[in-house]
């Protein structure tokens, strides 16, 4: 059981170490890299199954009990996110086999990729705030390298913006952690949940703002998102897809964790603020997308917009809202990453990401058209695809707390999302081929199609058979809105009871 909880981090790290030692042997690297990603996915499936049957799993590293050592905690949310990361990792690893050039592989793509997966998993699983910072840095530096791998001018220019914003975020995060440690004397998140109520509420809420900004930069919320549309369209498609699907969601995850477990002293303020941010983020992102004419730039701005929906679910701070936010997040990871991958195939055929230079794909590549429609219409929230249920739940959650304006904004943004998805459809798929452009002959490699088909099937499954997914989302919503289970699992009954006795209920 413990191995299962450690594996999502140690497995890819060990893989990365091995890949470094195998430097230069590209074919072995490719095989090992892909196989390892798949194995990690399998482990993540088992982990989620165990969490679903046995409840929250905890590992205390080195055998030192919480809050003294570092704990890894797999509640339903963490386990689901690790699984999603496993799926994305495998999909992208397969896609990259055909998408990535040998030069970038020689520059260290494979080990960096696995370090990134490890960092993401670490951030999901850790139960320690400083350790979260370390995993954040790990996934950040790996993403820096992947983003600039190949040294194209666009990559360097986008890269500096990405690096700059995220380094500032790291500084703010560490500042917040240092101050929080000074105020509570602890770093373990469960322990913090118990000790934060002892800190003056005003101070706790003020410190929460530092985390809001730090996590918010990583999640790309308004007004902190600029680095994302400035950079996500520059690296190779496989990397874009992983970033666009997975990476910003780590920030959302951190917001979800932080603003349910830790910063709940002044919900009216913090979550009210989140609601405002959510609304503005949605609108600004979708309008940004509407003004773009490049496939991946449209997708990048959309990431921002959809982060707004997830934050909106969190802002409602009800089981339904948070469960909805998580469902939305998972749906969005699959659909969004898939659209990036599809953009790559469209480029494979048409030779460009510019909508003006694309066309004829509906006529000549119907399979790609179907795959695009599934992902794009899901993103736009059409039933019965996954995006519809995601939207429905957050809207229902909004009705429950009577947040009418936000619901109205969310619905309107849905229409604008449809606008930019159909914009791509009209230009790249329905329009005739522009003068002088020819589609590359022959079907694109199966290795490019396979992950796209797999992700499309997941989108369909989440749409047509959403009940099991909602069952999970429901449990996550319940777990996050009542963190007692989390705290007890990490600290043990006795330690928690001692605090209850002090009159500080978990």
């Amino acid at each position: 059981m413990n191995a299962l909880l450690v594996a999502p981090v140690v497995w890819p790290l060990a893989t990365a170490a091995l890949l470094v030692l195998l430097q230069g042997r590209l074919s072995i690297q490719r095989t090992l890299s892909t196989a390892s990603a798949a194995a990690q996915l399998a482990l993540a499936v088992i982990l989620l199954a165990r969490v679903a049957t046995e409840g929250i799993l905890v590992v205390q590293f080195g055998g030192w009990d919480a809050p003294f050592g570092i704990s890894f905690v797999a509640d339903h949310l963490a386990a689901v996110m690790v699984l999603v990361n496993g799926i994305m990792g495998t999909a992208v690893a397969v896609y990259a086999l055909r998408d990535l050039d040998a030069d970038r592989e020689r520059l260290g793509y494979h080990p960096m990729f696995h370090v990134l997966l490890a960092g993401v998993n670490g951030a999901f699983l850790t139960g320690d705030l400083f350790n979260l910072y370390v995993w954040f840095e790990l996934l950040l530096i790996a993403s820096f390298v992947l983003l600039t791998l190949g040294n194209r001018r666009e990559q360097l220019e986008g890269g500096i913006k990405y690096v700059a914003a995220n380094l500032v975020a790291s500084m703010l995060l560490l500042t917040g952690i240092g101050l929080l440690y000074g105020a509570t004397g602890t770093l373990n998140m469960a322990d913090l949940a118990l000790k934060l109520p002892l800190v003056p509420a005003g101070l706790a809420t003020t410190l929460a703002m530092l985390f809001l900004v730090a996590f918010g930069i990583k999640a790309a919320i308004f007004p902190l998102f600029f680095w994302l549309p400035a950079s996500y369209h520059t690296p190779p498609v496989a990397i874009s897809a992983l970033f666009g699907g997975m990476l910003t969601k780590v920030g959302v995850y951190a917001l979800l964790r932080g603003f349910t477990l830790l910063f709940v002293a002044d919900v009216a303020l913090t979550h009210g603020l989140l609601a405002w941010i959510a609304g503005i983020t949605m609108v600004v992102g979708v309008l940004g997308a509407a003004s773009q004419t490049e496939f991946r730039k449209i997708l990048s701005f959309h990431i921002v917009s959809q982060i707004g929906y997830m934050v909106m679910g969190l802002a409602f701070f009800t089981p339904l809202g948070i469960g909805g936010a998580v469902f939305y997040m998972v749906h969005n990871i699959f659909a969004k990453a898939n659209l990036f991958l599809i953009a790559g195939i469209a480029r494979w055929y048409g030779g460009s990401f510019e909508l003006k230079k694309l066309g004829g794909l509906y006529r000549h590549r119907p399979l790609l058209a179907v795959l695009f429609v599934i992902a794009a219409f899901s993103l736009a929230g059409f039933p019965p695809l996954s995006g519809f249920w995601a939207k429905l739940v957050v809207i229902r959650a909004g009705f429950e707390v009577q947040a009418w304006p936000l619901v109205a904004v969310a619905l309107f943004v849905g229409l604008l999302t449809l606008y930019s998805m159909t914009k791509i459809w009209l230009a790249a798929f329905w329009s005739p081929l522009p003068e002088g452009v020819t589609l590359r002959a022959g079907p694109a490699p199966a290795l490019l199609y396979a992950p796209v088909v797999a992700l499309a099937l997941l989108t369909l499954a989440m749409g047509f058979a959403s009940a099991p997914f909602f069952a999970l989302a429901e449990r996550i919503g319940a777990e996050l809105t009542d963190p007692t289970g989390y705290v007890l699992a990490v600290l043990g009954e006795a330690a928690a009871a001692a605090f209850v006795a002090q009159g500080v209920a978990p």
Partner: protein
Amino acid sequence: MKSLILRTTTRPIIVVLLLISVFLLLRGHDLPGGGFIGGLVAAAAAALYAIAFGADAAARLLRVRPELLVGWGMATAVVAGLLGMVAGREFLTGLWWVIAVGDQEIKLSTPLLFDVGVYLVVVGVVLRFVLSLEER
């Protein structure tokens, strides 16, 4: 930068620094030192050599590419953590073996092994930084 004085003084300094670095690594568990500090000292020595004699010479002296040091270091640290699990405990749990050599005790442990991994990575990383910049 490749002055004669620098060149003649560098060799002995480097030897001393390397010895100090190993010393700092090994005593780290009980006194100030450890993998980071030891590794940084060793790396500083190598950097000094690279600045004095050029990157190529430093790479020749080193014989191992920095990437491999990094890879082996990471692998060592991970294995040190895994040993705890092999023993049926949690990941990164410390295991200790005390070997008596004459009247001296030598403590071998997984935390020490872990620190050796850290040492290797730090040396490899700093060398990579300096060599990459020096090479150009």
